């Protein structure tokens, strides 16, 4: 099994979740209120109340095939709006 970590602006959350659902992921977890810095943007907690919002961290445990299915769509969202996506190995307990 794989673990997919996605971190991006919470404003794109719905778009990403739709992508996940379309690829039939078995489940996902969302942690909001993440902050951070990327190649160009700094996202800070004190700005969360403004129109910019904070980041969301989404974790998906799923098979490689599912990841392959949604790779292009996720990449397109992230490349346009910013954010990162990384895959690692994970074994069910």
């Amino acid at each position, binding site marked *: 099994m794989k673990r997919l970590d996605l971190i991006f*602006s919470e*404003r794109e959350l719905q778009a990403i979740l739709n992508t996940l659902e379309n690829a039939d992921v078995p489940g996902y977890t969302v942690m909001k*209120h993440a902050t951070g810095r990327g190649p*160009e*943007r*700094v996202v*800070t*907690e*004190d*700005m*969360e*109340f*403004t*129109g*910019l*919002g*904070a980041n969301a961290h989404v974790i998906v445990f799923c098979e490689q095939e599912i990841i392959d299915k949604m790779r292009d769509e996720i990449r*397109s969202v992230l490349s*346009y*709006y*910013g954010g990162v996506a990384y895959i690692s190995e994970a074994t069910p307990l």
Partner: protein
Amino acid sequence: MDLSLLLQNIFAPTVLFFFIGVIAVFCKSDLEIPAPLPKLFSLYLLLAIGFKGGIGIQESGILNNQVLLTLSAAILMSLLIPLLGFIILRLKFNVFNSAAIAASYGSISAVTFITAESFLASQNIGSDGFMVGALALMESPAILVGLLLVRFAGPKNRPESRKLHLSSILHESFLNGSVYLLITSLIIGFLTSLSNPSAVEKMYPFTHSIFYGVECFFLLDMGMVAAQRLPSLKKAGSFLIGFAILMPIFNSIIGVLVARSLSLDTGNAFLFVVLCASASYLAVPAAMRMTVPEARSSYYISTTLGLTFPFNIVLGIPLYMSLVNKFIPISTF
């Protein structure tokens, strides 16, 4: 500017709390107002401003000629200012950044407005409830213009999926969370005041009595937020820094002329000018972040929050009052 106005403004609790927020950041105090508390304050303020404004509009009689003229002028200003701003900003920035920043200045800052209202009250100058209507009506048009500018002045090669369809432009302009809450609360205030005066009374302690205190608490937070924007402002360059100060002054001058031509009285004219001069950090950034990700958010948010907002709160308010005192003939009843 009249020095005594400046002093009177600076010694208001709202502005003092703003200062201690700024100073906390400069002195690296670990004072912190964690999320989502600022969101609580800003939701509360929008709800209360809207509700109070709705009552005010109902009480001042909506179909009055002066009211309709003022509201129309407000909408006009929020369409015009982004266009002017866009032309200036294009000297230095691309279409995306120019449109996003310009839209922010066409829109308004509700907290600047209420700080100005408190200032008015401390001067014992009255104003009319329908000015909150002007506040509510100036958000959407500015977003609309900003997005239309991107659509028509922007590069034609945006990816298909990012085309700004009219429906999504309208959606962002009118259904943005803070625009929506302000306008619907205003409608509720209006309807309640019309049909159910005893309910207005029951709301009073929440929407009116504790309002000023929450405003102070929120300004403490805003002081910290503003001060934390300063480093990224330096990166933004001197053109933008100049813009963030001069554009509000420029807008206030147009505002004062329009107010004069509408024969607004002192209080309303002042609030009208403040609306023109203030810039948005809630509705516009939310809309721009969603639909124009090409714009650098640090540009439009750092200028409005880090410079224009503090400038307006501290120096702008007395300055605009002086302008109004000079240009608006004192109304004689």
